[in-house]
Structure formats: structure tokens, C-alpha cells
């Protein structure tokens, strides 16, 4: 089975400062990795995903993440945050083969941007 750990439940950051949201995973097989964002009273929106290839993945809204297999990490970064980035961010993992449909999510990190 897969598991995901998001160590930081809340991260406050000043506007225009950089941010890193940490995600570590555990799996005995190859995985796909995802970051989702959830704005208040809305569903989950995909920010970016790692399936294979380049370990640096770029997503929407200026976010990027780096897959590090040796450290089993997939940290999310943004060089300069905006007020509109205030949201809950979820890291998720699935088995990396067709037919495995389930996503396993972390508990989320609440990003608060301070003006």
C-alpha cells in the first residue's frame, strides 16, 4: 500500500516570498505523484503531476515540484506567492500502472499568504 506524509499542516508566508510545501511518500512499487489545490468550498484542482521522465515538473499558477526517488519526496515550490495562492494543498500518490485507479492523499497543508 502507498502512504503520503505532509508534515506541515499550516504554512504562513508573506506575499511575494518563496514557499516550499513538503511531501514524502512510501511505496514498494513505482508511483505517480500529484499535487492538488482546494480553494474554500470547492473541489480539488490538479496543480501538477509526475508520471515519468524529467524529475522537475512544472504546473499551473507558477508552481513546480521535484521528484526525488532516493528521498521519496515530491516537494512543491513557488518562487513568489500571491494572495490568491491561499488555499489547502494536497499531495497524492497512485501506483504507476494502468488499472490502478486509487489516489492516496496526504492530510493537506493550509497555505496562508500574509499581505
Amino acid at each position, binding site marked *: 500500500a502507498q502512504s*503520503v506524509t505532509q508534515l506541515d499542516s499550516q504554512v504562513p508566508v508573506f506575499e511575494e516570498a518563496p514557499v516550499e510545501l513538503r511531501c514524502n511518500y512510501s511505496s514498494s512499487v513505482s508511483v*505517480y505523484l*500529484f499535487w*492538488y489545490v482546494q480553494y474554500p*468550498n*470547492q*473541489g*480539488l*484542482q*490538479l496543480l501538477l*503531476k509526475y*508520471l515519468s521522465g524529467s524529475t522537475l515538473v512544472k504546473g499551473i499558477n507558477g508552481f513546480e515540484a521535484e521528484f526525488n526517488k532516493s528521498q521519496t519526496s515530491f516537494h512543491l515550490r513557488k518562487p513568489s506567492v500571491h494572495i490568491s495562492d491561499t488555499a489547502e494543498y*494536497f499531495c*497524492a500518490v*497512485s*501506483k504507476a500502472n*494502468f*488499472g*490502478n*485507479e*486509487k*489516489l*492516496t*492523499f*496526504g*492530510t*493537506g497543508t493550509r497555505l496562508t499568504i500574509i499581505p
Partner: protein
Amino acid sequence: GAGVSQTPSNKVTEKGKYVELRCDPISGHTALYWYRQSLGQGPEFLIYFQGTGAADDSGLPNDRFFAVRPEGSVSTLKIQRTERGDSAVYLCASSLRGAQGYTFGSGTRLTVV
């Protein structure tokens, strides 16, 4: 439709009552998923449909929970004898390419009083 539609958006019910939550996926998406998100937690998998059949229902917590997708499109999650612990946001997603391509709905917030 353009997105995944879930109705109702909010549901308040009394303990012991029966509830149905509806999910209308993106047209043409063969895969449909239900997740439950409790307060302060990430979404947890409940059940996955490929077409009309439940391909994986390993996440359903007990036999009070049941889901159907009779025509391979709209799905209904049914909860019998609701308990206060069932209070959560129930999320539906659909996909053409498995875990790689989920589109989530906005969820149904269920409150059992």
C-alpha cells in the same frame, strides 16, 4: 457537461435517516470515483466504477454504504442509517485516463445531526 456535477451541495439529515448523493460525471468519462473528506483530513477513497460495474469498493467503510451507476454515467452514493460520524464532504471524480486524469466535483457536504 463541462465539469463533474454533484447534488445536493449541502445535505443536513437526522441520525438514522437514509440519504442519497448524486454525481453527474463529464460526458464520455468511463471511470467514476467517490471519496470522503472528513474535517482536517485528505480525501479517502471509497469506490471506483469502470462503466456500470464497481471495479473496486474496498474503501466503503461498512455495509451501510452502497453506490450504483446503472447506465454507466450518473452515480448515486447511498448511505443507510446515517451516523454522526458520516458527516463529511463527499467528493466525486471522473476520468478517461485513470489516476492521471481526475476531474473532481465540488462535493456534497453531509451533516448528520
